[in-house]
């Protein structure tokens, strides 16, 4: 099965549309494809939208994750179902489960303009999901460029 992403020409990011199931509810998120990230994580905007003040009640991660400027509060949720949705055909979905979905926030450490910079960062689709793929194609021969992820 091949899932197609979409391209954000403003920031030059490739995204995959996804539904993340938390507490039985599906939350829509745009996940930026990040082959440099070892894990998939919800960052500030999605974390605060989804968990609100309860974000600090999540399980605290002991894993050493480097955030912006070294300041990040890292939590996790266990056994999270994620549907990756094809941007052209909504019927096409690849479902995967993460033992741990990380939730990374910076909002306690940054204010004002610094927070604006930090909160630009989108949630990320990392190698814990990407390495389940058989093939990943970034195609720059088209406008806009295309991303296709083929899962077994």
């Amino acid at each position, binding site marked *: 099965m091949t899932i197609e992403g979409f391209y954000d020409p403003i920031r030059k990011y490739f995204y995959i549309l996804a539904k993340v199931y938390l507490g039985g*509810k599906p939350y*829509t998120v745009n996940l930026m494809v990040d082959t440099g990230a070892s894990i998939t994580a919800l960052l500030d905007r999605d974390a*605060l*939208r989804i968990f*609100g003040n309860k974000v600090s009640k999540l399980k605290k991660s002991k894993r050493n994750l480097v955030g912006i400027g070294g300041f990040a509060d890292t939590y996790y949720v266990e056994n999270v179902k994620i549907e990756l949705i094809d*941007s*052209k055909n909504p019927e096409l979905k690849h479902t995967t489960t993460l033992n741990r979905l990380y939730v990374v926030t910076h909002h306690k450490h940054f204010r004002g303009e610094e927070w*604006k910079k930090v909160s630009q*960062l989108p949630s990320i689709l990392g190698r814990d999901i990407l390495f389940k793929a058989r093939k990943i194609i970034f195609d720059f021969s088209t406008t806009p460029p295309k991303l296709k992820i083929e899962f077994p």
Partner: protein
Amino acid sequence: MWVGWFMSKTALLYERKSDELLKLKGYYVAILDGEIVDKDKDFFKLLQRLRKKKVKIENIIIDYIPEKPVELIV
């Protein structure tokens, strides 16, 4: 919600109608089914307003359109 044959409205907004987003530099924008439904320069005010409106927050994506994008180097 999906349109045409076929592209999600969200993908359409980013890929084909990014000029709509570019008009909102410096704003946090709330996107529902590919439509911009609210905006604010303050993320927390926007989030609070969305919660008060009792919209389905799970379906809304909040993006920030930077005046100057940060370089992501890691």
